[in-house]
């Protein structure tokens, strides 16, 4: 009978107890009862469904403290509903003062910051800004340029918003504005006019990712200037993004067809990860999440959905079996 050593050229270690999965990835050992190995996996699982089925909403927060607001439903063109996620289920929060869709939302669940969008009447580009404290929204200082499908990064005291579309006015724009906690100021334009891109990071280290319809570009913002980053494998707009300039994740979105792809960025290049189960566009992503933990919720698939998915990356010890 052959042995493991004859096949692989080395023996398997005997370990009385399993080592931590995080340090044993790819190793094989015998613990006196079973052959074991440790693996790393990334996957999307289902989360609690939204209370309000909607698309064109925006989101922020994290997997265990998420926030979504606005959007559009079968009966409400410009939704004002807000929901908070605890990692299991969504609970209704305070309504937006101005219902709108395709806004940008930044910040944690208890310090949300929603900017721009489309609002009534007649699909007006919104310059509205609202602050969320975990229970209610307060009107803030309006943007200089109203816009929807904009990108945004930062917090309620240090924000950058970029691109989008000013309906009936300048149209799709490269315009960028910064918020310092007390005023908006126009700063250096993006490299190109764009809408439907996703933003994440902070004011001084932000990303603009993709855009309508099949834009593959990633742009870096350092608080002053824009520079070119790595290209997406699957160009798309209106996906869900989270993370930082050097560790970002983009999930799903649309480029004419709905995309299930997830990609992870290291500051230089994108690599493919596990697909979402239900591809969708105009969804909400938990922008304060990470490459190891985020949610997407709602969106157009192409009908509006209330489905939530949770992305997790985990190390685990597995018993090797013959099946």
């Amino acid at each position, binding site marked *: 009978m052959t042995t493991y050593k004859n096949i692989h050229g080395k023996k398997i270690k005997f370990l009385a107890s399993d080592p931590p999965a995080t340090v044993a990835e790819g190793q094989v050992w015998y613990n006196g009862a079973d052959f074991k190995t440790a693996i790393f*996996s990334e*996957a*999307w*699982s*289902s*989360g*609690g*469904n939204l209370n309000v089925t909607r698309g064109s909403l925006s989101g922020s927060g994290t997997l265990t403290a998420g926030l979504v607001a606005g959007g559009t439903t079968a009966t409400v063109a410009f939704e004002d509903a807000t929901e908070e996620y605890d990692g*299991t*289920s969504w609970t209704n929060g305070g309504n937006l003062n101005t219902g709108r869709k395709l806004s940008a939302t930044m910040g944690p669940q208890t310090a949300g910051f929603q900017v721009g969008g*489309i609002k009534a009447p*007649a*699909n007006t580009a919104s310059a509205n800004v609202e602050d969320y404290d975990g229970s209610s929204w307060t009107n803030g200082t309006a943007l200089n340029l109203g816009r*929807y499908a904009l990108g945004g990064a930062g917090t309620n005291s240090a924000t950058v918003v970029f691109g989008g*579309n000013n*309906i*009936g006015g300048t*149209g*799709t724009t490269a315009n960028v504005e910064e918020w310092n906690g007390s005023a908006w100021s126009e700063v250096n334009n993006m490299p190109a006019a764009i*809408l*439907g891109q996703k933003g994440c990071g902070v004011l001084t280290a932000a990303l603009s990712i993709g855009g*309508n*319809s099949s834009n593959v570009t990633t742009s870096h913002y350092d608080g002053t200037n824009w520079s070119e980053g790595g290209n997406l494998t699957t160009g798309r*707009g*209106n996906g869900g993004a989270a993370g930082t300039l050097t560790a970002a994740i983009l999930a799903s979105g*649309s480029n*004419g*067809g*709905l995309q*299930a792809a997830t990609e992870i960025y290291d500051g230089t290049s994108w690599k493919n990860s*596990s*697909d979402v*189960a*239900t*591809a969708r*566009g*105009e969804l909400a992503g938990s922008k304060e999440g990470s490459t190891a933990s985020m949610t997407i919720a709602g969106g*157009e*698939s*192409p*009908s509006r*959905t209330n*489905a*939530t998915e949770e992305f*997790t990356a*985990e190390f685990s010890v597995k018993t090797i079996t013959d099946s």
Partner: protein
Amino acid sequence: MAIFIYGTATNTGKNFFTHQDRRNFFLRGYTGHDGSNNIDTWVIGANEKGALWLAEKSGTEQTKAEAQALVKAADVIARTAWDDNDVDDESADEKVARLGAKPGFITLP
């Protein structure tokens, strides 16, 4: 042997499918429509764990053609809604900019 199982099962939310399920079998969800309501329609990897998952979720297995018909019906509704979403004096390009491209028809794998 078939590569996929097709079925319908209502997504009940948390833990309807798990991280481990996604490692065990292929799973892709689509919105279908039965003429009255949206129907969660699934394409599932045709292995033992995939088949068990559909059964445990009280799902109903469909033929590929049946599943495709459900998804196509939902696509038609979404496309009609897109057609009907007009704004006075808006150009075709402006409409695409506002709504995104008109939804296409999804072909199940």
